[in-house]
Protein backbone atom coordinates (compact mmCIF):
# COMPACT_ATOMS: atom_id res chain seq x y z
CA UNK A 1 0.00 0.00 0.00
CA UNK A 2 1.13 3.60 -0.65
CA UNK A 3 2.19 5.44 2.50
CA UNK A 4 3.10 9.05 3.23
CA UNK A 5 4.88 10.60 6.18
CA UNK A 6 2.63 12.85 8.22
CA UNK A 7 5.67 13.91 10.25
CA UNK A 8 4.08 12.72 13.44
CA UNK A 9 1.50 15.47 13.41
CA UNK A 10 -1.09 13.10 14.94
CA UNK A 11 -3.39 13.23 11.96
CA UNK A 12 -5.48 10.13 11.47
CA UNK A 13 -7.47 11.34 8.49
CA UNK A 14 -6.35 14.02 6.08
CA UNK A 15 -8.80 14.99 3.33
CA UNK A 16 -7.98 17.66 0.75
CA UNK A 17 -10.09 19.06 -2.06
CA UNK A 18 -12.32 15.97 -2.30
CA UNK A 19 -15.37 16.03 -4.50
CA UNK A 20 -18.06 13.47 -5.25
CA UNK A 21 -20.95 13.66 -7.68
CA UNK A 22 -23.96 11.35 -8.04
CA UNK A 23 -26.03 10.96 -11.20
CA UNK A 24 -25.73 12.68 -14.56
CA UNK A 25 -27.47 15.42 -16.50
CA UNK A 26 -30.34 17.11 -14.70
CA UNK A 27 -30.25 14.49 -11.94
CA UNK A 28 -26.59 15.33 -11.17
CA UNK A 29 -25.97 16.12 -7.52
CA UNK A 30 -22.63 17.24 -6.19
CA UNK A 31 -22.57 15.70 -2.72
CA UNK A 32 -19.03 16.84 -1.81
CA UNK A 33 -17.58 20.10 -3.09
CA UNK A 34 -13.81 20.38 -2.65
CA UNK A 35 -13.94 19.25 0.96
CA UNK A 36 -10.96 19.73 3.31
CA UNK A 37 -11.19 17.74 6.51
CA UNK A 38 -8.87 16.47 9.25
CA UNK A 39 -9.35 14.03 12.12
CA UNK A 40 -6.75 13.41 14.82
CA UNK A 41 -5.56 10.35 16.65
CA UNK A 42 -7.20 9.75 20.02
CA UNK A 43 -10.21 11.96 19.41
CA UNK A 44 -13.89 11.52 18.85
CA UNK A 45 -14.78 13.83 16.01
CA UNK A 46 -18.39 14.53 15.22
CA UNK A 47 -19.53 15.47 11.75
CA UNK A 48 -22.81 17.33 12.02
CA UNK A 49 -25.13 19.17 9.72
CA UNK A 50 -28.57 19.02 8.16
CA UNK A 51 -29.80 16.06 6.14
CA UNK A 52 -28.36 15.94 2.64
CA UNK A 53 -25.33 18.09 3.47
CA UNK A 54 -22.88 15.30 2.56
CA UNK A 55 -21.98 13.90 6.02
CA UNK A 56 -22.58 10.27 5.10
CA UNK A 57 -20.92 10.67 1.71
CA UNK A 58 -17.81 12.09 3.43
CA UNK A 59 -17.86 9.19 5.88
CA UNK A 60 -18.20 6.70 3.02
CA UNK A 61 -15.23 8.03 1.06
CA UNK A 62 -13.04 8.20 4.19
CA UNK A 63 -13.95 4.59 5.00
CA UNK A 64 -13.13 3.52 1.44
CA UNK A 65 -16.65 2.25 0.78
CA UNK A 66 -17.35 4.82 -1.93
CA UNK A 67 -15.13 5.98 -4.76
CA UNK A 68 -14.65 9.75 -5.04
CA UNK A 69 -14.19 11.85 -8.14
CA UNK A 70 -11.19 13.98 -7.22
CA UNK A 71 -8.92 15.11 -4.38
CA UNK A 72 -6.66 13.33 -1.90
CA UNK A 73 -7.56 11.22 1.12
CA UNK A 74 -4.95 9.89 3.52
CA UNK A 75 -6.04 7.63 6.33
CA UNK A 76 -3.34 6.59 8.77
CA UNK A 77 -0.73 7.47 6.15
CA UNK A 78 -2.43 5.40 3.45
CA UNK A 79 -3.32 7.33 0.32
CA UNK A 80 -6.72 5.98 -0.66
CA UNK A 81 -6.71 7.79 -4.00
CA UNK A 82 -3.67 5.79 -5.08
CA UNK A 83 -5.02 2.36 -4.16
CA UNK A 84 -6.63 -0.21 -6.41
CA UNK A 85 -10.06 -1.51 -5.45
CA UNK A 86 -8.60 -4.74 -4.08
CA UNK A 87 -6.17 -2.80 -1.86
CA UNK A 88 -9.00 -0.58 -0.62
CA UNK A 89 -10.91 -3.72 0.43
CA UNK A 90 -7.75 -4.90 2.21
CA UNK A 91 -7.42 -1.49 3.85
CA UNK A 92 -10.99 -1.57 5.15
CA UNK A 93 -10.55 -5.10 6.41
CA UNK A 94 -7.56 -4.20 8.59
CA UNK A 95 -8.01 -0.52 9.44
CA UNK A 96 -11.69 0.36 9.72
CA UNK A 97 -14.40 -0.64 12.18
CA UNK A 98 -18.01 0.20 11.37
CA UNK A 99 -20.99 1.07 13.54
CA UNK A 100 -24.21 1.53 11.63
CA UNK A 101 -27.44 3.38 12.36
CA UNK A 102 -29.54 0.18 12.15
CA UNK A 103 -26.82 -1.96 13.78
CA UNK A 104 -26.74 -4.31 10.75
CA UNK A 105 -26.29 -7.41 12.87
CA UNK A 106 -27.05 -10.60 10.97
CA UNK A 107 -30.26 -11.85 12.60
CA UNK A 108 -29.61 -15.56 12.02
CA UNK A 109 -26.19 -15.51 13.68
CA UNK A 110 -25.53 -15.52 17.41
CA UNK A 111 -24.00 -12.48 19.11
CA UNK A 112 -20.64 -14.26 19.27
CA UNK A 113 -20.78 -15.13 15.57
CA UNK A 114 -21.75 -11.59 14.66
CA UNK A 115 -18.89 -10.12 16.65
CA UNK A 116 -16.35 -12.56 15.28
CA UNK A 117 -17.13 -11.70 11.63
CA UNK A 118 -14.36 -9.06 11.13
CA UNK A 119 -11.77 -11.47 12.56
CA UNK A 120 -12.95 -14.28 10.29
CA UNK A 121 -12.77 -11.93 7.29
CA UNK A 122 -9.18 -11.21 8.39
CA UNK A 123 -8.42 -14.92 8.30
CA UNK A 124 -8.33 -15.55 12.07
CA UNK A 125 -9.24 -19.11 13.07
CA UNK A 126 -12.78 -19.62 14.30
CA UNK A 127 -11.84 -20.72 17.81
CA UNK A 128 -9.54 -17.71 18.32
CA UNK A 129 -12.12 -15.34 16.80
CA UNK A 130 -14.90 -16.62 19.03
CA UNK A 131 -12.66 -16.41 22.12
CA UNK A 132 -11.92 -12.76 21.43
CA UNK A 133 -15.58 -12.04 20.60
CA UNK A 134 -16.64 -13.62 23.90
CA UNK A 135 -14.14 -11.50 25.86
CA UNK A 136 -15.33 -8.31 24.20
CA UNK A 137 -19.00 -9.11 24.79
CA UNK A 138 -18.12 -9.73 28.43
CA UNK A 139 -16.42 -6.32 28.63
CA UNK A 140 -19.48 -4.65 27.13
CA UNK A 141 -21.81 -6.23 29.67
CA UNK A 142 -23.21 -8.94 27.48
CA UNK A 143 -21.40 -11.88 29.06
CA UNK A 144 -23.44 -15.08 29.10
CA UNK A 145 -25.52 -14.03 26.12
CA UNK A 146 -23.03 -15.04 23.45
CA UNK A 147 -25.32 -17.65 21.95
CA UNK A 148 -28.42 -15.43 21.84
CA UNK A 149 -29.70 -14.09 18.58
CA UNK A 150 -29.66 -10.30 18.09
CA UNK A 151 -33.47 -10.19 17.86
CA UNK A 152 -33.65 -11.06 21.57
CA UNK A 153 -31.81 -7.88 22.53
CA UNK A 154 -32.94 -4.29 23.06
CA UNK A 155 -31.76 -1.55 20.69
CA UNK A 156 -29.04 -0.41 23.12
CA UNK A 157 -27.79 -3.96 23.59
CA UNK A 158 -27.73 -4.51 19.84
CA UNK A 159 -25.69 -1.34 19.38
CA UNK A 160 -23.25 -2.60 22.03
CA UNK A 161 -22.87 -5.80 20.04
CA UNK A 162 -22.26 -3.66 16.95
CA UNK A 163 -19.58 -1.76 18.88
CA UNK A 164 -17.97 -5.04 19.90
CA UNK A 165 -18.01 -6.11 16.25
CA UNK A 166 -16.46 -2.79 15.20
CA UNK A 167 -13.63 -3.14 17.74
CA UNK A 168 -12.90 -6.84 17.74
CA UNK A 169 -10.11 -6.65 15.17
CA UNK A 170 -8.51 -3.55 16.78
CA UNK A 171 -9.11 -1.11 13.93
CA UNK A 172 -7.41 2.29 14.02
CA UNK A 173 -10.37 4.11 12.55
CA UNK A 174 -13.90 3.61 13.87
CA UNK A 175 -16.64 5.00 11.65
CA UNK A 176 -20.05 5.55 13.24
CA UNK A 177 -23.08 6.46 11.18
CA UNK A 178 -25.87 7.90 13.36
CA UNK A 179 -25.12 5.45 16.17
CA UNK A 180 -27.78 6.82 18.52
CA UNK A 181 -30.62 7.79 16.24
CA UNK A 182 -32.44 4.49 16.79
CA UNK A 183 -31.96 4.67 20.59
CA UNK A 184 -33.65 6.49 23.45
CA UNK A 185 -31.87 9.32 25.27
CA UNK A 186 -30.38 7.29 28.13
CA UNK A 187 -29.27 4.41 25.96
CA UNK A 188 -27.84 6.87 23.45
CA UNK A 189 -25.86 8.52 26.24
CA UNK A 190 -24.48 5.13 27.36
CA UNK A 191 -23.41 4.30 23.84
CA UNK A 192 -21.69 7.68 23.44
CA UNK A 193 -19.83 7.20 26.75
CA UNK A 194 -18.66 3.89 25.42
CA UNK A 195 -17.52 5.39 22.14
CA UNK A 196 -15.66 8.15 23.96
CA UNK A 197 -13.88 5.47 25.96
CA UNK A 198 -13.00 3.75 22.70
CA UNK A 199 -11.52 6.98 21.34
CA UNK A 200 -9.61 7.87 24.55
CA UNK A 201 -8.24 4.61 25.77
CA UNK A 202 -7.06 3.28 22.52
CA UNK A 203 -4.75 4.88 20.04
CA UNK A 204 -7.34 5.38 17.40
CA UNK A 205 -9.72 7.85 15.87
CA UNK A 206 -13.50 7.73 16.12
CA UNK A 207 -15.54 9.68 13.58
CA UNK A 208 -19.24 9.98 14.32
CA UNK A 209 -21.73 11.29 11.81
CA UNK A 210 -24.88 12.42 13.56
CA UNK A 211 -27.60 15.02 13.65
CA UNK A 212 -28.71 13.87 17.11
CA UNK A 213 -28.01 17.05 19.12
CA UNK A 214 -28.50 15.15 22.39
CA UNK A 215 -25.08 13.61 21.95
CA UNK A 216 -23.08 16.58 20.64
CA UNK A 217 -21.65 17.18 24.11
CA UNK A 218 -19.59 13.99 23.87
CA UNK A 219 -17.57 15.32 20.95
CA UNK A 220 -13.89 16.24 21.32
CA UNK A 221 -14.18 18.31 18.18
CA UNK A 222 -17.01 19.06 15.76
CA UNK A 223 -17.05 19.60 12.04
CA UNK A 224 -20.13 21.28 10.64
CA UNK A 225 -21.10 20.61 7.05
CA UNK A 226 -23.39 22.56 4.80
CA UNK A 227 -24.29 21.94 1.18
CA UNK A 228 -21.42 19.53 0.47
CA UNK A 229 -18.75 21.68 2.14
CA UNK A 230 -17.12 21.87 5.57
CA UNK A 231 -18.61 25.09 6.88
CA UNK A 232 -16.95 25.31 10.31
CA UNK A 233 -14.67 23.33 12.61
CA UNK A 234 -15.21 23.74 16.37
CA UNK A 235 -12.42 22.73 18.74
CA UNK A 236 -14.92 22.07 21.56
CA UNK A 237 -18.65 21.61 22.05
CA UNK A 238 -18.72 24.92 24.00
CA UNK A 239 -17.21 26.69 21.01
CA UNK A 240 -19.90 25.13 18.81
CA UNK A 241 -22.58 26.43 21.15
CA UNK A 242 -21.01 29.86 21.30
CA UNK A 243 -21.05 29.92 17.52
CA UNK A 244 -24.79 29.46 17.62
CA UNK A 245 -25.00 25.67 17.51
CA UNK A 246 -27.80 23.91 19.32
Amino acid at each position, binding site marked *: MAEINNNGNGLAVHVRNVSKTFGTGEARIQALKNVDFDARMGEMLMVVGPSGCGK*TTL*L*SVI*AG*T*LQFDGGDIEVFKTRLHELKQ*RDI*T*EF*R*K*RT*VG*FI*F*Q*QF*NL*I*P*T*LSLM*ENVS*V*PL*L*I*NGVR*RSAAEKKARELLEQLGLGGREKDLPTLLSGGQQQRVAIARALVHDPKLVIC*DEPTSALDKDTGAQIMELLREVARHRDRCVIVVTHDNRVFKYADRMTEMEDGRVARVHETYSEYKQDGGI
Partner: protein
Amino acid sequence: MYRLALRMLLGDRAKYVMLVGGLTFASLLMTQQCAVFFGLLSWTTSHMRNMRASIWVVDPKVEQINEVKPMRDTDVNRVRTVTGVAYAVPLYTGIIQARIADGSFKPIEMVGLDATTLVGRPPRILSGRLEDLRLPNTVMIDELAVQRLSLNKNRPLRIGDTFEINDREARVIGICRTDRHFFGYPYVFTTYDEAMQFAPRTRKMLSIVLAEPAPGWSAAQTARQIEKETQLKAYTEAEFERSTIKWFFLNTGIPASFGTTILLGFIVGMAISGQTFYSFVLENLKHLGALKAMGASNGLLARMLLLQAMTVGMIGYGLGVGLTVLFGIAVLKKGQPPFLMPYQLPLFTLVVILLICAFAALLGIRKIYKLEPAVVFRG
Protein backbone atom coordinates in the same frame (compact mmCIF):
# COMPACT_ATOMS: atom_id res chain seq x y z
CA MET B 1 -16.98 -17.50 6.98
CA TYR B 2 -18.32 -20.50 5.08
CA ARG B 3 -19.82 -21.89 8.24
CA LEU B 4 -21.50 -18.55 8.87
CA ALA B 5 -22.79 -18.59 5.29
CA LEU B 6 -24.50 -21.90 6.01
CA ARG B 7 -25.85 -20.58 9.32
CA MET B 8 -27.30 -17.59 7.45
CA LEU B 9 -28.95 -19.95 4.97
CA LEU B 10 -30.34 -22.36 7.56
CA GLY B 11 -31.48 -19.49 9.76
CA ASP B 12 -33.97 -18.34 7.13
CA ARG B 13 -36.20 -21.41 7.45
CA ALA B 14 -38.90 -20.33 5.01
CA LYS B 15 -36.48 -19.61 2.17
CA TYR B 16 -34.42 -22.70 2.97
CA VAL B 17 -37.47 -24.98 2.87
CA MET B 18 -38.69 -23.29 -0.33
CA LEU B 19 -35.29 -23.72 -2.00
CA VAL B 20 -34.87 -27.34 -0.95
CA GLY B 21 -38.50 -28.06 -1.87
CA GLY B 22 -38.13 -26.54 -5.33
CA LEU B 23 -34.92 -28.39 -6.05
CA THR B 24 -36.31 -31.66 -4.66
CA PHE B 25 -39.32 -31.29 -6.93
CA ALA B 26 -37.14 -30.51 -9.96
CA SER B 27 -34.78 -33.35 -9.19
CA LEU B 28 -37.64 -35.80 -8.60
CA LEU B 29 -39.49 -34.77 -11.74
CA MET B 30 -36.44 -34.95 -13.97
CA THR B 31 -35.08 -38.24 -12.59
CA GLN B 32 -38.42 -40.01 -12.25
CA GLN B 33 -39.72 -38.97 -15.66
CA CYS B 34 -36.40 -39.88 -17.32
CA ALA B 35 -36.44 -43.26 -15.54
CA VAL B 36 -40.01 -43.96 -16.69
CA PHE B 37 -39.07 -42.86 -20.22
CA PHE B 38 -35.99 -45.10 -20.26
CA GLY B 39 -38.11 -47.91 -18.85
CA LEU B 40 -40.63 -47.41 -21.63
CA LEU B 41 -37.87 -47.40 -24.24
CA SER B 42 -36.47 -50.59 -22.76
CA TRP B 43 -39.93 -52.14 -23.08
CA THR B 44 -39.93 -51.36 -26.82
CA THR B 45 -36.84 -53.52 -27.29
CA SER B 46 -37.73 -56.27 -24.81
CA HIS B 47 -38.29 -58.79 -27.68
CA MET B 48 -34.55 -58.67 -28.24
CA ARG B 49 -33.78 -59.55 -24.64
CA ASN B 50 -36.46 -62.22 -24.52
CA MET B 51 -35.40 -63.91 -27.80
CA ARG B 52 -31.66 -63.40 -28.08
CA ALA B 53 -29.78 -63.71 -31.38
CA SER B 54 -26.77 -62.04 -32.99
CA ILE B 55 -28.47 -61.26 -36.32
CA TRP B 56 -32.13 -60.51 -37.01
CA VAL B 57 -33.22 -60.86 -40.63
CA VAL B 58 -36.54 -59.24 -41.54
CA ASP B 59 -38.53 -57.89 -44.47
CA PRO B 60 -36.67 -54.95 -46.08
CA LYS B 61 -39.39 -52.53 -44.96
CA VAL B 62 -39.15 -53.42 -41.27
CA GLU B 63 -37.60 -50.64 -39.18
CA GLN B 64 -38.26 -51.82 -35.67
CA ILE B 65 -38.55 -55.06 -33.73
CA ASN B 66 -42.25 -54.74 -32.90
CA GLU B 67 -43.21 -54.49 -36.54
CA VAL B 68 -43.97 -57.80 -38.29
CA LYS B 69 -44.05 -58.06 -42.10
CA PRO B 70 -44.23 -61.78 -42.81
CA MET B 71 -41.71 -63.40 -45.17
CA ARG B 72 -41.78 -66.62 -47.16
CA ASP B 73 -40.62 -69.78 -45.37
CA THR B 74 -38.01 -70.23 -48.10
CA ASP B 75 -36.26 -67.09 -46.92
CA VAL B 76 -34.77 -69.13 -44.07
CA ASN B 77 -32.94 -71.29 -46.56
CA ARG B 78 -31.80 -68.25 -48.54
CA VAL B 79 -30.22 -66.84 -45.40
CA ARG B 80 -28.64 -70.21 -44.57
CA THR B 81 -26.83 -70.21 -47.91
CA VAL B 82 -25.20 -66.81 -47.36
CA THR B 83 -21.43 -66.82 -46.88
CA GLY B 84 -20.55 -66.02 -43.29
CA VAL B 85 -23.74 -67.46 -41.75
CA ALA B 86 -23.14 -70.27 -39.24
CA TYR B 87 -26.81 -71.11 -38.96
CA ALA B 88 -30.22 -69.50 -39.45
CA VAL B 89 -33.55 -70.48 -37.91
CA PRO B 90 -37.15 -69.33 -38.36
CA LEU B 91 -39.03 -67.41 -35.68
CA TYR B 92 -42.69 -66.58 -35.45
CA THR B 93 -43.98 -63.67 -33.36
CA GLY B 94 -47.51 -62.37 -33.32
CA ILE B 95 -50.30 -61.20 -31.09
CA ILE B 96 -53.15 -63.68 -30.91
CA GLN B 97 -56.03 -64.39 -28.55
CA ALA B 98 -55.96 -67.01 -25.80
CA ARG B 99 -59.17 -68.28 -24.28
CA ILE B 100 -59.11 -69.20 -20.61
CA ALA B 101 -61.34 -71.57 -18.66
CA ASP B 102 -64.09 -69.02 -17.94
CA GLY B 103 -64.45 -68.35 -21.67
CA SER B 104 -62.86 -64.91 -21.70
CA PHE B 105 -60.21 -63.95 -24.27
CA LYS B 106 -56.81 -62.49 -23.44
CA PRO B 107 -54.27 -61.24 -25.96
CA ILE B 108 -50.88 -62.95 -25.86
CA GLU B 109 -47.55 -62.47 -27.59
CA MET B 110 -46.89 -65.84 -29.21
CA VAL B 111 -43.30 -66.78 -30.03
CA GLY B 112 -42.57 -69.82 -32.18
CA LEU B 113 -39.01 -71.17 -31.84
CA ASP B 114 -37.14 -73.50 -34.17
CA ALA B 115 -37.90 -76.93 -32.68
CA THR B 116 -34.45 -78.38 -33.36
CA THR B 117 -32.26 -75.70 -31.89
CA LEU B 118 -34.76 -73.79 -29.76
CA VAL B 119 -32.81 -70.63 -30.67
CA GLY B 120 -34.61 -67.56 -29.38
CA ARG B 121 -35.37 -69.29 -26.10
CA PRO B 122 -36.39 -67.19 -23.07
CA PRO B 123 -33.38 -66.21 -20.98
CA ARG B 124 -34.63 -67.33 -17.54
CA ILE B 125 -36.65 -70.51 -17.04
CA LEU B 126 -38.24 -70.67 -13.60
CA SER B 127 -39.82 -74.12 -13.79
CA GLY B 128 -40.19 -76.95 -16.32
CA ARG B 129 -37.94 -77.93 -19.23
CA LEU B 130 -37.77 -76.00 -22.46
CA GLU B 131 -37.12 -79.23 -24.38
CA ASP B 132 -40.68 -80.34 -23.52
CA LEU B 133 -41.86 -77.79 -26.07
CA ARG B 134 -41.11 -80.48 -28.66
CA LEU B 135 -44.17 -82.36 -27.34
CA PRO B 136 -47.40 -81.56 -29.22
CA ASN B 137 -49.66 -78.65 -28.13
CA THR B 138 -47.26 -77.41 -25.48
CA VAL B 139 -46.34 -73.88 -24.44
CA MET B 140 -44.00 -72.21 -21.97
CA ILE B 141 -45.53 -69.07 -20.45
CA ASP B 142 -44.04 -66.12 -18.60
CA GLU B 143 -45.00 -64.82 -15.15
CA LEU B 144 -47.30 -62.18 -16.62
CA ALA B 145 -49.17 -64.95 -18.46
CA VAL B 146 -49.56 -66.81 -15.16
CA GLN B 147 -51.12 -63.67 -13.76
CA ARG B 148 -53.32 -62.88 -16.78
CA LEU B 149 -54.41 -66.36 -17.83
CA SER B 150 -55.19 -67.73 -14.34
CA LEU B 151 -58.81 -67.86 -13.34
CA ASN B 152 -58.11 -66.45 -9.88
CA LYS B 153 -55.15 -65.39 -7.81
CA ASN B 154 -55.51 -68.26 -5.37
CA ARG B 155 -55.09 -70.83 -8.11
CA PRO B 156 -52.41 -69.56 -10.47
CA LEU B 157 -51.74 -71.37 -13.72
CA ARG B 158 -49.12 -74.09 -13.27
CA ILE B 159 -47.34 -76.84 -15.23
CA GLY B 160 -49.88 -79.28 -16.66
CA ASP B 161 -52.72 -76.74 -16.83
CA THR B 162 -54.31 -75.96 -20.16
CA PHE B 163 -55.97 -73.07 -21.97
CA GLU B 164 -57.03 -72.54 -25.56
CA ILE B 165 -55.34 -70.70 -28.37
CA ASN B 166 -57.37 -70.38 -31.53
CA ASP B 167 -59.57 -73.36 -30.54
CA ARG B 168 -56.57 -75.59 -29.86
CA GLU B 169 -55.60 -76.79 -26.45
CA ALA B 170 -52.27 -75.45 -25.15
CA ARG B 171 -50.67 -77.30 -22.25
CA VAL B 172 -48.24 -75.44 -19.98
CA ILE B 173 -44.89 -77.26 -19.69
CA GLY B 174 -42.91 -74.52 -17.99
CA ILE B 175 -42.82 -70.99 -16.65
CA CYS B 176 -40.17 -68.44 -17.54
CA ARG B 177 -39.26 -64.88 -16.67
CA THR B 178 -39.21 -62.28 -19.42
CA ASP B 179 -38.74 -58.55 -19.67
CA ARG B 180 -42.09 -56.88 -20.02
CA HIS B 181 -43.08 -55.77 -23.50
CA PHE B 182 -44.20 -52.33 -24.61
CA PHE B 183 -47.64 -53.66 -25.64
CA GLY B 184 -48.08 -55.22 -22.22
CA TYR B 185 -49.05 -58.71 -23.45
CA PRO B 186 -47.71 -61.87 -21.82
CA TYR B 187 -45.24 -64.05 -23.70
CA VAL B 188 -46.23 -67.60 -24.69
CA PHE B 189 -43.39 -69.64 -26.20
CA THR B 190 -43.91 -72.69 -28.38
CA THR B 191 -42.14 -74.27 -31.35
CA TYR B 192 -42.33 -72.72 -34.80
CA ASP B 193 -44.36 -75.65 -36.12
CA GLU B 194 -46.83 -75.47 -33.23
CA ALA B 195 -47.10 -71.70 -33.69
CA MET B 196 -48.17 -72.36 -37.29
CA GLN B 197 -51.02 -74.43 -35.86
CA PHE B 198 -51.98 -72.00 -33.10
CA ALA B 199 -51.85 -68.80 -35.18
CA PRO B 200 -54.50 -67.96 -37.77
CA ARG B 201 -53.25 -69.11 -41.14
CA THR B 202 -52.04 -66.49 -43.61
CA ARG B 203 -50.18 -66.76 -46.93
CA LYS B 204 -46.82 -65.94 -45.34
CA MET B 205 -46.08 -66.80 -41.70
CA LEU B 206 -42.33 -66.34 -41.12
CA SER B 207 -41.76 -63.25 -38.97
CA ILE B 208 -37.99 -63.17 -38.44
CA VAL B 209 -34.95 -65.27 -39.30
CA LEU B 210 -32.46 -65.48 -36.46
CA ALA B 211 -28.88 -66.07 -37.54
CA GLU B 212 -25.39 -66.40 -36.09
CA PRO B 213 -22.15 -65.42 -37.84
CA ALA B 214 -19.68 -68.10 -38.87
CA PRO B 215 -16.34 -68.23 -37.03
CA GLY B 216 -14.11 -65.36 -38.19
CA TRP B 217 -17.09 -63.20 -39.18
CA SER B 218 -18.45 -60.37 -37.11
CA ALA B 219 -22.20 -59.97 -36.74
CA ALA B 220 -22.08 -56.71 -38.70
CA GLN B 221 -20.09 -58.25 -41.56
CA THR B 222 -22.50 -61.18 -41.78
CA ALA B 223 -25.52 -58.86 -41.66
CA ARG B 224 -24.19 -56.82 -44.57
CA GLN B 225 -23.47 -60.02 -46.50
CA ILE B 226 -27.03 -61.27 -45.89
CA GLU B 227 -28.44 -58.00 -47.17
CA LYS B 228 -26.22 -58.19 -50.23
CA GLU B 229 -27.11 -61.74 -51.13
CA THR B 230 -30.83 -61.88 -50.16
CA GLN B 231 -32.06 -58.27 -50.41
CA LEU B 232 -33.63 -58.81 -47.00
CA LYS B 233 -32.88 -56.47 -44.13
CA ALA B 234 -30.40 -57.80 -41.58
CA TYR B 235 -29.73 -56.11 -38.27
CA THR B 236 -27.20 -56.88 -35.57
CA GLU B 237 -28.65 -56.72 -32.03
CA ALA B 238 -27.26 -53.23 -31.44
CA GLU B 239 -28.42 -51.98 -34.85
CA PHE B 240 -31.95 -53.28 -34.34
CA GLU B 241 -32.12 -51.74 -30.88
CA ARG B 242 -30.96 -48.35 -32.20
CA SER B 243 -33.32 -48.54 -35.15
CA THR B 244 -36.27 -49.42 -32.89
CA ILE B 245 -35.57 -46.55 -30.51
CA LYS B 246 -35.10 -44.17 -33.44
CA TRP B 247 -38.44 -45.31 -34.85
CA PHE B 248 -40.18 -44.55 -31.55
CA PHE B 249 -38.52 -41.14 -31.43
CA LEU B 250 -39.60 -40.29 -34.97
CA ASN B 251 -43.03 -41.89 -35.09
CA THR B 252 -44.56 -41.47 -31.64
CA GLY B 253 -45.21 -38.52 -29.36
CA ILE B 254 -43.68 -40.34 -26.39
CA PRO B 255 -40.27 -38.61 -26.39
CA ALA B 256 -41.90 -35.20 -26.90
CA SER B 257 -44.38 -35.66 -24.05
CA PHE B 258 -41.73 -36.97 -21.64
CA GLY B 259 -39.29 -34.34 -22.89
CA THR B 260 -41.84 -31.64 -22.11
CA THR B 261 -42.31 -32.91 -18.55
CA ILE B 262 -38.55 -33.16 -18.02
CA LEU B 263 -38.10 -29.66 -19.43
CA LEU B 264 -40.88 -28.42 -17.16
CA GLY B 265 -39.05 -29.93 -14.18
CA PHE B 266 -35.93 -28.09 -15.24
CA ILE B 267 -37.74 -24.78 -15.79
CA VAL B 268 -39.77 -25.02 -12.57
CA GLY B 269 -36.62 -25.92 -10.62
CA MET B 270 -34.73 -23.09 -12.22
CA ALA B 271 -37.54 -20.59 -11.67
CA ILE B 272 -38.30 -21.53 -8.06
CA SER B 273 -34.70 -21.82 -6.92
CA GLY B 274 -33.50 -18.86 -8.98
CA GLN B 275 -36.24 -16.59 -7.75
CA THR B 276 -36.10 -17.78 -4.14
CA PHE B 277 -32.34 -17.58 -3.95
CA TYR B 278 -32.35 -14.16 -5.57
CA SER B 279 -34.90 -12.89 -3.07
CA PHE B 280 -32.80 -14.48 -0.28
CA VAL B 281 -29.83 -12.45 -1.56
CA LEU B 282 -31.94 -9.30 -1.86
CA GLU B 283 -33.22 -9.68 1.70
CA ASN B 284 -29.67 -10.14 2.92
CA LEU B 285 -28.25 -7.39 0.74
CA LYS B 286 -27.93 -5.05 3.72
CA HIS B 287 -25.93 -7.68 5.62
CA LEU B 288 -23.88 -8.63 2.58
CA GLY B 289 -23.17 -4.93 2.09
CA ALA B 290 -22.05 -4.73 5.71
CA LEU B 291 -19.74 -7.71 5.19
CA LYS B 292 -18.37 -6.03 2.08
CA ALA B 293 -17.82 -2.80 3.99
CA MET B 294 -16.00 -4.76 6.69
CA GLY B 295 -13.57 -6.01 4.06
CA ALA B 296 -15.11 -9.19 2.69
CA SER B 297 -13.98 -9.41 -0.93
CA ASN B 298 -16.32 -10.03 -3.85
CA GLY B 299 -14.63 -13.40 -4.28
CA LEU B 300 -15.31 -14.42 -0.67
CA LEU B 301 -18.96 -13.32 -0.88
CA ALA B 302 -19.36 -15.12 -4.23
CA ARG B 303 -17.96 -18.32 -2.74
CA MET B 304 -20.32 -17.97 0.24
CA LEU B 305 -23.31 -17.63 -2.11
CA LEU B 306 -22.13 -20.57 -4.21
CA LEU B 307 -21.75 -22.68 -1.09
CA GLN B 308 -25.28 -21.77 0.01
CA ALA B 309 -26.73 -22.54 -3.43
CA MET B 310 -24.81 -25.78 -3.81
CA THR B 311 -25.81 -26.90 -0.31
CA VAL B 312 -29.53 -26.55 -0.99
CA GLY B 313 -28.89 -28.09 -4.41
CA MET B 314 -27.24 -31.19 -2.98
CA ILE B 315 -29.92 -31.61 -0.31
CA GLY B 316 -32.70 -31.16 -2.89
CA TYR B 317 -30.92 -33.51 -5.26
CA GLY B 318 -30.49 -36.17 -2.56
CA LEU B 319 -34.15 -35.97 -1.57
CA GLY B 320 -35.35 -35.96 -5.19
CA VAL B 321 -33.23 -38.93 -6.26
CA GLY B 322 -34.05 -40.73 -3.00
CA LEU B 323 -37.78 -40.34 -3.66
CA THR B 324 -37.24 -41.55 -7.24
CA VAL B 325 -35.47 -44.66 -5.94
CA LEU B 326 -38.37 -45.34 -3.55
CA PHE B 327 -40.76 -44.91 -6.47
CA GLY B 328 -38.61 -47.27 -8.53
CA ILE B 329 -38.56 -49.94 -5.83
CA ALA B 330 -42.34 -49.74 -5.53
CA VAL B 331 -43.08 -49.93 -9.27
CA LEU B 332 -40.51 -52.63 -10.01
CA LYS B 333 -42.26 -54.82 -7.45
CA LYS B 334 -45.55 -54.16 -9.20
CA GLY B 335 -44.15 -54.45 -12.72
CA GLN B 336 -45.48 -51.16 -14.00
CA PRO B 337 -45.20 -48.31 -14.90
CA PRO B 338 -41.88 -48.90 -16.66
CA PHE B 339 -38.79 -47.82 -14.75
CA LEU B 340 -35.12 -47.95 -15.65
CA MET B 341 -32.49 -45.88 -13.86
CA PRO B 342 -29.00 -46.40 -15.31
CA TYR B 343 -26.18 -44.85 -13.25
CA GLN B 344 -25.82 -42.06 -15.83
CA LEU B 345 -29.30 -40.75 -14.97
CA PRO B 346 -28.60 -39.58 -11.38
CA LEU B 347 -25.32 -38.14 -12.65
CA PHE B 348 -27.22 -36.25 -15.35
CA THR B 349 -29.70 -34.92 -12.75
CA LEU B 350 -26.82 -33.93 -10.47
CA VAL B 351 -25.21 -31.91 -13.26
CA VAL B 352 -28.53 -30.24 -14.13
CA ILE B 353 -29.29 -29.43 -10.48
CA LEU B 354 -25.80 -28.00 -10.00
CA LEU B 355 -26.33 -25.90 -13.14
CA ILE B 356 -29.62 -24.61 -11.73
CA CYS B 357 -27.87 -23.77 -8.44
CA ALA B 358 -24.98 -22.12 -10.25
CA PHE B 359 -27.50 -20.04 -12.18
CA ALA B 360 -29.32 -19.08 -8.96
CA ALA B 361 -26.02 -18.20 -7.27
CA LEU B 362 -24.92 -16.26 -10.33
CA LEU B 363 -27.95 -13.96 -10.05
CA GLY B 364 -26.91 -13.17 -6.47
CA ILE B 365 -23.21 -12.90 -7.29
CA ARG B 366 -23.98 -10.39 -10.04
CA LYS B 367 -25.86 -8.32 -7.50
CA ILE B 368 -23.00 -8.56 -5.01
CA TYR B 369 -20.40 -7.46 -7.54
CA LYS B 370 -22.48 -4.40 -8.36
CA LEU B 371 -23.16 -3.62 -4.70
CA GLU B 372 -21.38 -0.54 -3.37
CA PRO B 373 -20.39 -1.19 0.24
CA ALA B 374 -21.53 2.36 1.01
CA VAL B 375 -25.10 1.05 0.72
CA VAL B 376 -24.85 0.19 4.43
CA PHE B 377 -24.87 3.89 5.29
CA ARG B 378 -28.16 4.50 3.52
CA GLY B 379 -30.44 3.63 6.41
